[in-house]
């Protein structure tokens, strides 16, 4: 009998093994290192993460240690876009072209305080990837509301009736900048996120990825449900996975069935697992449903 052929080794998980080191400072069930594992499957050690003040700054650990076998540059809250632009240009001048610069910023650091430097980097079309990991509040400082917190959600600064405004949709803002590549992703769909990073890697210019990242601490759910809740956001149609390039929106595989509203799970299934939505009234749930419909109409118009 001949030698049996070794089984093919899929990139996930085999290429995720070496860069994200065990024993980081993240809470149990944290979505942040889940996202980093996918980054590492694409870029390995050859990435420079530019991280503004956020949970991620803490998760990688304090000097002299670093939980990532990749370079991390800790920067001031508002500056991820600017610093990543500078590093990208410095590498280019030095002729280093096998290292990926990635701005890895929270929703507060992106939708709120980092918006100006992000917009500048996009407008100048610097060749790097900006990833907004969206845990939908300022988690590191104690769950304060951000402009990316969804309607109705409890936070420590919206304590009684929840947030009364809808989420700021940063991916749409980036599409309006006319950058070469914009995508949404979710920690529940690592293969989809992987494929998007692979595409982003091949595109020259500014790339933006909006990563949905449920946080057990801030959203008030059992840490074992991080992936489940992220998946429910997609299955209920609340979070739509797509890519936008060459002037067209392309719905990603996991979201394709939900173009048909009858295929979507009721949003209640997503909301009921999270303590932050505990006090939603039926009227507020109706408002959330309307928002979902409105967002899908936007998606359809751009396909």
């Amino acid at each position, binding site marked *: 009998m001949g030698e049996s052929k070794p089984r093919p080794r899929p990139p996930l998980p085999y290429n*995720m093994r070496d860069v994200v*080191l065990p*024993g*980081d400072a993240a809470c*149990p069930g944290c979505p942040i290192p889940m996202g980093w594992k996918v980054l590492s499957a694409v870029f390995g050690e050859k990435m420079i993460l530019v991280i503004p003040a956020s949970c991620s700054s803490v998760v990688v650990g304090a000097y002299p*240690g670093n939980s990532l076998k990749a370079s991390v540059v800790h920067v001031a809250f508002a500056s991820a876009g600017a610093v990543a632009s500078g590093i990208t240009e410095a590498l280019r001048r030095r002729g280093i072209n096998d290292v990926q610069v990635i701005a890895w910023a929270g929703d507060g650091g992106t939708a709120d305080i980092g918006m100006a430097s992000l917009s500048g980097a996009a407008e100048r079309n610097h060749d790097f990837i900006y990833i907004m990991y969206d845990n939908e509040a300022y988690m590191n400082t104690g769950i304060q509301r951000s402009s990316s917190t969804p309607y109705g959600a409890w936070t420590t600064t919206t304590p009684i009736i929840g947030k009364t405004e809808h989420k700021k949709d940063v991916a749409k803002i980036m599409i309006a900048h006319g950058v070469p590549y914009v995508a949404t992703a979710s920690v529940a769909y690592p293969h989809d996120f992987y494929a998007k990073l692979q595409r982003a890697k091949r595109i020259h210019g500014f790339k933006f990825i909006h990563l949905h990242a449920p946080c057990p601490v801030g959203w008030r759910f059992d840490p*074992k449900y*991080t*992936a489940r809740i992220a998946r429910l956001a997609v299955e209920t149609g609340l979070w739509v996975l797509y890519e936008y390039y060459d002037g067209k929106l392309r719905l990603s595989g996991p979201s394709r069935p939900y173009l048909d509203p009858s295929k979507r799970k009721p949003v209640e299934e997503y909301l009921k697992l999270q303590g932050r939505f505990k006090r939603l009234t039926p009227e507020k749930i109706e408002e959330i449903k309307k928002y979902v419909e409105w967002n899908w109409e936007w998606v359809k118009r751009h396909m």
Partner: protein
Amino acid sequence: MSKSMVRLEPIKYHVPLARPKQGVAGKTGFWRTEKPIVDNEKCIRCYLCEIYCPVNVIRVEPETGVTIDYDYCKGCGVCSDVCPVNAIRMVPEE
């Protein structure tokens, strides 16, 4: 003014660079209140638990099945929730 504000000689900085290190937050296994126990007979080697584990402590191999590094596993339970065949059970730590 005699003293120039501009230093012309090269400056040798000592840059405090952090280095990659396992366990930057210590042995995070101590955080655990529940422990994931794998039934390798039931396991269908789908890799999902390894792909999702936030602490990167699971290894799935077709031959040997699932192994978990309990020194660092935080006991979040994500692996047990994503397993399609319920091969991972969470049991309370003593």
